[in-house]
Every structure is written in C-alpha cells, then in structure tokens.
C-alpha cells in the first residue's frame, strides 16, 4: 500500500474514514493451465502491497527452489497453496485471495483450468460480480476460452474483462491484440456477453497491471487495477422486488417474534405491505430490528430481523416478499443443472434440493439435453456425469416460492444433495415453472394430481372422443370404461347428452354455445384429471379450435384425441335416435353434418374406422393403443 502509506503515516484517522466507505468487488479469474493466472493474481497481491516482508523473503527462496522463472520472482508461488498442488504444479480447487486498494476491497476466486474446471469455475463464479478471462496472446481464443465464457454467462456474470496476457511474448503487438479481441467479441456476442473490457497485459512483467504500459502506448483503455477499481458494483438485486428468505425465527420471549434473514433483493421499509410465501398470507412490516437499533429501511444484502404487525405463521424456508410483487409458487420446473459429483445424476432418483433457506425433495424427470460447453451443442442425454451441464425437468415434493435465476440468484439458484452420502452433488438454476404447475393454487400443492393418480395406481389422462352424432362415441366410451373399471382403474365418463341435462342445460346448439359447451367440459375434465382419474369425454366437439383449446389445458401425454370416424352417410343410415331425420325435416337447427359443419381432426392420437370394426373391436383397439403409448399398463 505504498501509494497510501503517506496518508497512513500522517493522518490515520483520515485514512480509516476513507476506508470505511470502500466498496467490495468479488471477481473470478478464468484461464487455462498456462495462461498465467496464478502469476496475475500473485502480481495483483504484490502490486497492491499485500505481500509482507516475511512472505516476500519466503517467495524469493521458493522462486529459486521450485520456481518456473529461472530464479526470478515467481508470483504464482504466492497463491499456490496445498502441498499436493505444489508437487503437481497445478491448482486443484477454488481458492480465495484478498487485496485492497484505496477505493476497494477485492476478493478473487482463483479456479483451476484443468479438467475439474466446470465444478470449480461454477463454484467460484457463483459469488463473483465480474470475471477476468485470461488469454495467452500467443494462442488467442481457444476452446477453453469459449468454455469459460459460457460458464461465466450461465452463472449470470455480465461484466467481463478480457485479459490478453503474455503480450511481452508477442512483441507487444497491437495487431495481435486487436485480432484476438475481435475474435472474442464475435464469439461473446453469440452467447450474449456484451459488457467486455479488453486489456493487453503482461502479468510476469507488470505491463498494464497498475499503470499504463510504456510498451503499449497504443492501448487507450484503462489498466487492469484502474478498471477493477472503477467498474460499478451497484447491486442489480437492489432494484428488484423485495425478497427475504426466512432463515430463523427469533423468539426470545412471548413478546417478540422476529423473522431473521438476509435480504435477497429489493428494499423494505417499516410499514411496507408484505406477503409470506408459500402461504400467501399478508401483513405489514412493524420493525426492522438490528442490534444497532431499529432501521427505517433496509436493502438487498443486509442481514436483518423483521417483525410483522399481525400474527402470521412464518417459518424457516418461507419467503417474505413485497405484497405487490410476490414471487410465484411452483413445484415443477425446467432447470439447468451442473453436475458436480463422481456418481452420475440419475433420472427418477430423489435428491434434496436446497434453495434459500428451504430444503425439499426433488426428482429429476427427463433430462431434455446436455450442453457441450466447448461447442455449445445440445446433446441428447439420459443422465449427467461429473462436470456435465444439462437442461432437466424437476419435480418437487411441494411448491416453493421462486424467481427465475436470471431475475434473482437467491430465489432461482439451488444445490442438490445426495440423501445417502449427504454430499453436495449438483447445482442448478431454475429457468421457469412448467406450465402444468404454473398458477396451481398453493392450497392444492401438498396433494397434487400426481399424488392422487399414484394413489389410484394409474396415470391420469383424458380420452377425448370426437365424431358425428351417431358415430358410436358413447357406445365405445361406455365399453372402454367398463373394461377399465373391471381392471380396477378409476374413471369417469362425460357424455355430451348427459352433461347437457345438467351443467350445460342452459346451452343450445349455436356455434357460440357449442364453444362454451366444449370449454366447460374441457375444464371439468381437467379437474377430473387433477383428481387423478382417467376421463372419457364423448362429445361431438365439431370445431378444431375448441378441441385444440381443450388439448392445451393438459400436459403433454395427458390428452388423447380419439376420432370416431363414421361417414355422414353411414351415421345418417344408422340414425339410432332419429335425429338426422328431424334435422333433414328442418325440425332441428344447427345439426352437425347437416346445417352445421364438422371439422375433421387432422392428427388425432387414435382414429377408429367404424365401418371396419364394431364397437367392441373399437374399444379393444383404443385400449391396445393406450397400452402402446404407456398411458395404462398392461
């Protein structure tokens, strides 16, 4: 701290005052094995005078003994810590280094560049505000550079310093530097990194580390330390809606009930309307308690204790949020998962998921794909191995309050813990709630469709039979239901005629009423599927758009359109109920096929040609098909 020592010597009071207001920048350095990363960090520590005399003399000795720079000071030795890595000459884990200048305190996450890169880099990056990506000027943008950049972007760091190192070895060539920067920018734009500051430097010789390098007068931008000191650290979380994951309920006596936690985002003030999630109860902030006295308001990052004006049930894991902008509650997500353990991640296995102060059970349903971090290609995958990154669907045993990771790192980031070994085996980012769980009311979350269906030993679904009047829908549906019930399944048959006697007796046969007729039946079927039932719907449902509307109420794999295909002439010939005759005589208006259209299904899951088989055969065919589709087991 040579540049500050005058002030320290002359006026320690002024120095302390200035340092009281220092901000903190956490950054990560990413580079490959030989990019000079440790040298750069060692250099930063050395230049900011964080190396004490005794450490320096140890460094001089070590440089002669095990240094790689022929007896010259090897700054990398300042930061290589564990005995094992000294022997191997590589760093093997995430290390944290500290230095400070007049303006800032810095915490550097130093992560290795070898094969454990993904686990370690993601770990180091998770707490960083900025990333320094090192490039060897002789080598330019490498596969590793792309990999590091992708991971930096994935974990949500938006600010990047492109440190083009070893400029001394390329004759401080401006052309080389500019070519590398152009290459990098082209790649970075592809993955969405835009806030990039490129600096040419030599960590070994100190060029552009602390002062403008006389060897590169053409570099108009800042030197590295200058940039690290000046880059804004305004916490993006402060501008977001208020969120406080409750860590601990403070109850020292009957008169005090406080909810302790660190504010994840936004700000809170006394008197603010809040909502507690997942319960959804509302209250008002009575006090913001700290040992230093009550606060009027508090912001993201502060650890506080809130009391509320009313008796509301709040426990660890709940989130206290802005009443006007609460987070969603959901139990099924699409998530991006980074696997961190030698034991691969298995679909269908239950892991513990910790997010905020809440731990729940999570099952990974399908792995949609994994990502090749070198090429960014999406690859099909059934499981994730150590250092794999995959996009998966997650199903939790209960709903949790969440925000997408891109919105809120605290409410969207999670770790996965193995239930047997207790190891932290993975980390992940919640991308979004799956449509099927979105807007599900919190009251229903403890027992959901899946649980109800499982209790009945079946998969809930709807068989939507459509076709002309007299095509045979009801007869076939009735046979299917009898068979399923005989097999011990839980079903319900919604028949068009029957429903029109009750729920829909106010509806006629105009196009508008037909739409409403289908909407109601679709909603009722949805409730029944939610109850875990196999639902048979036997409705003419003549319009494609309403059948599509019905389909969209369900998850993929739940809705089966069954087209009972009987030509008009054949239906009219059968005319079991005499309706066609009435219609032909004009006694029935808007009769499908006569004076109201029937829109034939374009791609039904199942099509039954009733001219080729009887009702029993049709029922048989449909059940066979459902077994093939694994909707019901054999």
């Amino acid at each position: 701290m040579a540049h500050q020592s005058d002030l320290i010597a002359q006026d320690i009071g002024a120095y302390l005052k200035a340092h009281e207001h220092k901000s903190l920048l956490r950054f990560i350095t990413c580079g490959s094995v030989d990019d000079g990363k440790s040298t750069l960090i060692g250099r930063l520590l050395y230049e900011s005078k964080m190396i004490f005399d005794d450490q320096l003399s140890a460094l001089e000795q070590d440089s002669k003994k095990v240094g790689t720079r022929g007896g010259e000071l090897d700054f990398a030795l300042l930061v290589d810590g564990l005995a094992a890595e000294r022997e191997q000459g590589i760093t093997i884990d995430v290390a944290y280094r500290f230095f400070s200048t007049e303006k800032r305190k810095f915490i550097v996450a130093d992560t290795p560049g070898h094969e454990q890169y993904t686990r370690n880099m993601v770990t180091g990056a998770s707490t960083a505000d900025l990333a320094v990506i090192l490039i060897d000027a002789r080598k330019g943008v490498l596969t590793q550079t792309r990999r590091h950049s992708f991971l930096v972007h994935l974990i949500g760091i938006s600010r990047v310093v492109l440190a083009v190192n070893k400029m001394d070895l390329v004759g401080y060539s401006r052309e080389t530097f500019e070519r590398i920067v152009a290459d990098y920018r082209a790649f970075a734009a592809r993955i969405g990194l835009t806030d990039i500051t490129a600096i040419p430097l030599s960590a070994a010789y100190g060029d552009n580390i602390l002062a403008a390098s006389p060897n590169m007068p053409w570099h108009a931008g800042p030197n590295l330390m200058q940039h690290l000191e000046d880059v804004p650290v305004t916490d993006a979380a402060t501008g977001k809606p208020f969120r406080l994951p409750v860590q601990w309920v403070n109850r020292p006596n009957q008169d005090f009930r406080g909810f302790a936690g660190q504010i994840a985002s936004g700000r809170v003030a006394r008197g603010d309307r809040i909502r507690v999630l997942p319960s959804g109860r509302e209250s008002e902030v009575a006090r913001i308690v700290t040992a230093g006295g009550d606060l009027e308001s508090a912001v993201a990052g502060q650890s506080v204790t809130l009391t509320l004006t009313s008796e509301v049930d709040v426990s660890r894991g709940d989130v206290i949020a802005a009443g006007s902008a609460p987070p969603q509650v959901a139990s099924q997500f699409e998530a991006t998962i980074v696997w961190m353990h030698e034991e691969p991640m298995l679909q269908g296995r239950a892991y513990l998921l910790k997010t905020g102060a809440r731990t729940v059970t999570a099952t990974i349903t399908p792995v949609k794909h994994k990502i090749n971090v070198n090429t960014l290609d999406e690859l099909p995958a059934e499981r994730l191995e150590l250092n794999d990154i995959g996009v998966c669907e997650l199903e939790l045993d209960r709903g949790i309050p969440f925000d997408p990771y891109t919105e809120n790192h605290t409410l969207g980031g999670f770790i996965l813990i193995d239930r047997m070994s207790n190891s932290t085996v993975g980390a992940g980012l919640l991308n979004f709630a799956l449509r099927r769980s979105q807007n599900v009311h919190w009251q229903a979350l403890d027992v959901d469709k899946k649980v109800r269906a499982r209790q009945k030993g079946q998969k809930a679904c709807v068989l939507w039979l459509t076709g002309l009047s007299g095509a045979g829908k009801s007869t076939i549906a009735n046979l299917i239901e009898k068979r399923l019930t005989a097999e011990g399944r839980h079903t319900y048959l919604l028949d068009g005629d029957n429903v029109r006697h009750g729920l829909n007796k106010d509806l006629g046969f105009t196009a508008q009423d037909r739409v409403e007729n289908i909407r109601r039946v679709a909603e009722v079927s949805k409730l029944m599927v939610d109850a875990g039932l196999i639902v048979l719907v036997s409705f003419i449902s003549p319009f494609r758009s309403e059948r599509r509307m019905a389909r969209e109420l369900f998850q993929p794999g739940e809705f089966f359109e069954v087209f009972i295909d009987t030509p008009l002439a054949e239906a009219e010939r059968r005319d079991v109920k005499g309706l066609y005759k009435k219609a032909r005589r004009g006694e029935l208006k808007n009769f499908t096929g006569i004076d109201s259209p029937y829109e034939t299904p374009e791609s039904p899951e199942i099509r039954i040609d009733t001219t080729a088989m009887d009702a029993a055969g049709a029922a048989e065919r449909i059940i066979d098909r459902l077994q093939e589709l694994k909707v019901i087991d054999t």
Partner: protein
Amino acid sequence: MKAAAAAPLSTGTLTHLQRLEAESIHILREVVAECEKPVMLYSIGKDSAVMLHLAVKAFYPAVPPFPLLHVDTTWKFKAMYAFRDEIAARLGMQLLVHINQEGLKAGVNPFTHGSQVHTDVMKTQGLKQALDKYGFDAAFGGARRDEEKSRAKERIFSFRSAQHRWDPKQQRPELWSLYNPRKHPGESLRVFPLSNWTELDIWQYIYLENIPIVPLYFSALRPVVERDGALIMVDDERMPLKPGETPMQKRVRFRTLGCYPLTGAVESDADTLPAIIQEMLLTKTSERQGRVIDHDAAASMEKKKQEGYF
C-alpha cells in the same frame, strides 16, 4: 454498539464491511437453524471478539443460542482469562472451559515439550476431547482465509469425519450463499464465519463497532525477556528464567495472542486502535509470524488441519 455498520451508503450499495458483516450473520444463523448442537470456539483473541460480536448481532434480541467453548492450555496470559470471564458474564452466555487433563497430568508445557507437542496435546487433542465430550455437531471458529496459504481454499462449512479429520477431497462445493450442513451421526462441521475477512477488516471493524478486546493488544510497559529474537512476556511465576535473564520493562504490545510463552511481543507505542492499525499497515511483517507454530516445514498448517487442529 454503534449503528455505523448497519446503515447502507446513500447509494444503496453496501460497504465492504457491511457486506462482510451480513455474510457472517447469514452463516451464523444458517448453522443455528440447521445443526443440532452448535458451539462457538472462543480463543479470546481479536478474531474471536469479532465473531462473538457478530453472533450477538445475528440473534439479537435473543442471546446467541449456543455456548462458548474455550480449549484452555492453561498457558494463556492472565489478562486473557480475566477478559474471557468478564465477557461471558456480561453477555449472559454459557462458557465451557476444557483442559486436556491427561496432558495436564503428564505435565505438558511449552518450555520442556516445545511448541509442537504442547500445541498438539493441549490444543488439538483438547479440542477433539471437548467436542466429543459434549457431542457438538458444529463448531464456529474464527479462522480467516487470508491468514495462511492453505486456508485460502478452506470452505466456510468445513466437513470433518467422525475422527475429526479434514479430507481435502471430501469438501463440498459452496455456491452462492447455499451451505450444506448435512452429516451423519458422529460427523461434524467446523464453520468459519470470518472466512472472507482480512486482518485489516478485523481491526477496522473493531474500531468502527467499538468491540472490546484484550488490553494486551495495546501498548503498555510490560516485563519481557528476549529469547531467540522474540520478546516473551513474563506473565507469571511458572516462566523459568534462564541464567542471566532478567525481565526488562518495555513498552510492548501483542499482534496476536496465544500461549504466553509462545507469543512474541513487539516493541510499540501504539495504545489506541488507530495507532494499532497504523502500525500494522506500516509494518510489513505478516501476522502469524509471531506464532511459533508456523515456523515449520512448508504446508505445515495443512498437516495440522488434517490432524484436526483448527
């Protein structure tokens, strides 16, 4: 207690000390919420003072819901014992003092057994005995990552086997502020809430928050003898004087506090916190040099850690 560190800057950005404080409080609460029987290791030094102060803040208005544990080697400075008892009484916290009785019976002391054996028996073994005796499953320690190279990689939640061993390969990745405190019966955690603090941060925080510390940190006239280039304070009658040694009265203070026969004093006039900080910043000798245990082979701390020393 002043509210200085609690209110954010007008810009809405927290200062570095506010961020460190909030992080430490989060860690302390997380352990209390998730572990069954936590304890705070209290060594009476300045780092312990800050850690304890943070605990008071974390659980205010409740008293921190865990006891303090002092693993006593019986060779601490008298002023440290007095300070320890006073602080515990003032905070209303339970103070457990554990002394390795076997070591005591065997007469282990720093003068005849040397620093290594003394530290191993009285401190390392003593700590394990105490943790086993009370069945603590999580112990807060005041270690910082900036103290020593091998500590730079230490997790905040450091996992220990049932034999109290630290295995660098079994440490869990720590992402964001999500810590995994789960363990099997017998296994335990060492938790370091001050991991990200530096020596300067500690002093600055003590200054800003007006945290009481042992008076030995401040300069005063004290009786010392010079041994192997270190100034050792003659704190009580147990200290055997070598032929020709006479205690001299010198203005000295201590940058770090341990067992008095193993802790070198520095000549200094710094008798206020700003003066101490000033001296620290202008003196380019690192903090742990005063502790005799570090004068071993390279990576000695790592070996000690594997054996269970904090």
